[in-house]
């Protein structure tokens, strides 16, 4: 199946293909030898920041595809995953095979520490936009998602709902909003930087006076909406809102007129992975159409795989005004972002 797909891609996207040739490697293939070696190792350990239900489902799908190899899913928030990897590797404990977080800065750090293995799956080299993987082949964009405004449609009428970020400063939303924290959530860190570039810090200074309920993870604001604790989220994961909508919770997404911040979640194989072959096999599975389609259908995540078909009713990325992440700029500004945020929001 992959061979046929590859042939079609090679024919139809010849331009992108030749551009990618600049990168010396073509990516590794899943060979019978690799599968056999992976099976001998028997386990792959996946440190991930994706919602636990989505990550567990992905693991089960892999286990069905390659019987005899167990996936151990270790889920925590991006910053916690990062902290754990840092703790473990710097003290010589090698537990993790594959790592994935939603903060692109982490992977720059990992790379600087030489903690990542080189080599990407064939599919990434062929299908992914060139700017969505590391030129040295150490990591690639496994998923993307947005940080969105959303509201309870049974508590706020559509015509009253905010249309953009500036509308959130209206006094009528005082005490009505919930938002996640940039010091905890990679998604919100990325979004905060993008919005501060666009609207300046005055925006956050004013938002801080709106008595916003502060939660930590970007998965949390949608759940506070579902509980009815607040009718409006100033930011939060788009994919958790999709999942609520699928569950029948009356929630609606607003793609702000000013733009919606996009966050890229990278994945990589660790250089000292205890199960190197299983890691390679699992890593290539992560970028397969099957896994990417599953992330989209079940998890509400966005994919860079051109073959992924999004569920009807979800606004396609091309129709949304996006604020693209700027990893280098963000990395330089980290301390300032956190200090400013604490100044305006108290934590």
């Amino acid at each position, binding site marked *: 199946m992959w061979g046929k797909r590859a042939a079609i891609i090679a024919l139809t996207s010849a331009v992108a293909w030749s551009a990618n040739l600049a990168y010396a490697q073509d990516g590794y293939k899943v060979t019978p030898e690799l599968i056999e070696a992976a099976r001998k190792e028997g386990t792959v350990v996946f440190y991930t920041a994706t919602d636990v239900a989505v990550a567990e489902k992905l693991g089960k799908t892999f286990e069905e595809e390659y019987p005899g190899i167990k996936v151990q899913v270790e889920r925590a928030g991006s*910053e916690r995953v990062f902290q754990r990897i840092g703790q473990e590797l710097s003290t*010589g*404990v090698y*537990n993790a095979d594959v790592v994935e977080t939603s903060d692109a800065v982490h992977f720059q750090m990992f790379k600087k520490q030489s903690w990542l293995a080189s080599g990407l799956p064939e599919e990434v080299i062929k299908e992914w936009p060139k700017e969505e993987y590391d030129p040295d082949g150490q990591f690639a964009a496994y998923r993307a998602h947005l940080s969105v405004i959303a509201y309870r449609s049974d508590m706020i009428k559509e015509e009253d709902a905010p249309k953009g970020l500036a509308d959130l400063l209206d006094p009528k939303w005082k005490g009505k909003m919930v938002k996640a*924290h940039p010091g905890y959530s990679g998604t919100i860190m990325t979004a905060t930087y993008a919005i501060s570039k666009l609207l300046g810090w005055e925006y956050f200074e004013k938002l801080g006076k709106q008595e916003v309920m502060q*939660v930590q993870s970007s998965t949390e604001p949608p759940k506070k909406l579902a509980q009815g604790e607040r009718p409006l989220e100033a930011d939060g994961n788009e994919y958790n809102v999709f999942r609520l909508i699928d569950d029948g919770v009356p929630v609606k997404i607003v793609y702000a007129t000013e733009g919606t911040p996009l966050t890229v979640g990278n994945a990589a194989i660790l250089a000292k992975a205890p199960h190197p072959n299983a890691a390679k096999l699992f890593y290539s599975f992560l970028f397969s159409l099957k896994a990417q389609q599953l992330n989209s259908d079940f998890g509400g995540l966005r994919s860079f795989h051109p073959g992924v078909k999004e569920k009807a009713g979800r606004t396609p990325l091309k129709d949304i005004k996006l604020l693209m992440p700027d990893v280098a700029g963000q990395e330089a500004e980290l301390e300032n972002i956190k200090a400013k945020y604490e*100044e305006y929001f108290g934590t």
Partner: protein
Amino acid sequence: MASSAYATPFNRGIDFSKPVFILLAAILAVLVLFPLFWLLLYAFTDPARQFTLMNFVKLVSDPAMRRSFGLAIGMAALVGVLACAIATPMAWLVARTDLPYARFVRILVTASFVTPPFLGAIAWEILAAPNSGIFNILYRVLFDRPTDDYLFNIYSFAGLVFAIACYTFPYVFTLVANALDRVPSDLEDASAILGAKWLTTLSRVTLPMVVPAMLAGALIAILQALTMFGSPAILALPAGFHVITTKIWSLFQFPPKLELAAAAAIPLLILTILLLRGQKWILGRKGYTVLGGKSGAPRVTELGKFKPLALLFVFGILCLTVIFPYAALIKTAFTETIDASISWDSFTLKHLNFVLFDFSATRLALFNTLLLGVLTATVCTAISLVVSYLVARKSVMGAGILGVLATAPVAIPGIVLGVGLFLSYANPTFKLYGTLWILLIAFMTIEMPAGYQQLSSAFQGVHPELEEASRILGASRLKALWQITAPMLRTSVVATWCFVFIGTIRELSATILLTTANTKLVSVIIYDLNESGDLGAISVLGLMLMVVSFFVVYIASKMPLGAGRLQPRG
């Protein structure tokens, strides 16, 4: 001490005091000094490990940091006051009056004691969050208020103080009630015979005798509040303010500032030492020996017409600390969402199913939690008993240092201790990270002060006369401890065991840095689930944990101890 002069000629057993002292000193030194060493090293150096005071300059010059210190100290002090205000009258009512259902009240107080504060905080979120809180929904429905009106807001400074006091007042209650159980009636009788009214006897005789217990309890409550992480993380952060622990925790966010975090712990260390000094100063001035070889039954005050009022007070407190929160957890465990009304239609076993069958971490975490709880409690109680004996009886030169060592960890917030322990034991030399050993060491270090404080205050109430009698008859020190003192302190020893056991179940802040996939604990799972907002599963897990803990505490209270059981008097 007079006894040694008599004891020596008859001493048939070998006195193991010295070797035991050396062994204990070594164990405590490793447990305490190792992480403290790392803490100090980081506080006074830069990332290149060169000496600097810059960390402290940064600390003092940061207004956000100063604010978090102020708020934390204010919060802890208020928790201490509130805990004493609730617990002391309650303990007196239960121990010394004819209040009906006193046994039942004690059991319910134990229930709020066993409840981990973070679970209590989550329960209070369910009850008193401004919009989705059950109380506020009821308030709006009953009084026909607009949809954004609310009566309580748990996400506030007052809410935080309240939610922490609910789960720390049992420290004061247990100690004061135990002391009241032990206060001999002779003095009170004397006061009454001399014509004093019951109120005079209460305020001039009974209360002063329980002051040490009340202070010890308040001190534990204050220190608990000061170093607590879970409840502020759940309640203060949404309200938009930091306390010291959450501030220190935020310093571990990317990129981590370990030096600053270590430095931020130093004022906490100094504050704690000052508090302990203060306690010693107050206690040092008076003799408080209340348990001797002879005494009568405790006096019982008749409440008379105040009985309904007293009952209402006790019942009200228990509603707030135990009955309402558990009702909320039970409701959330068995209904679809937290704002669903209670009916057969909304009843569901979905969350129970998820926790028992779908959620793979449940069984392992429960097993690990209980195993570590029992191990820590047993080891800690044994060490504390011997240490507080050696310190109280000054039987070995330099025994005081053991007391200092055993108390020192109280000053280190769990999260910082977690890092210290991580740096100490998760390196290529020890390789303990990822094993239960590092957690056992962590729990022992964290719980040692509680165990030691409990038993040493108990020792202060035991007059050495009976021990001396035993030693005169030829028993060695440790034999006298085992045969005479331990059974006399049975209640305190069991209470200490339970304190420590419960302490390990409550622990979250150090644990969160030290657990891995195979060493998961229930507290960490609950915290993770709270992060993803799954209140139904939290409720099920929390209730399961409580049922099991209660069972363990019940068994512990039935254990015989030492050579014989001390029969209750009266």
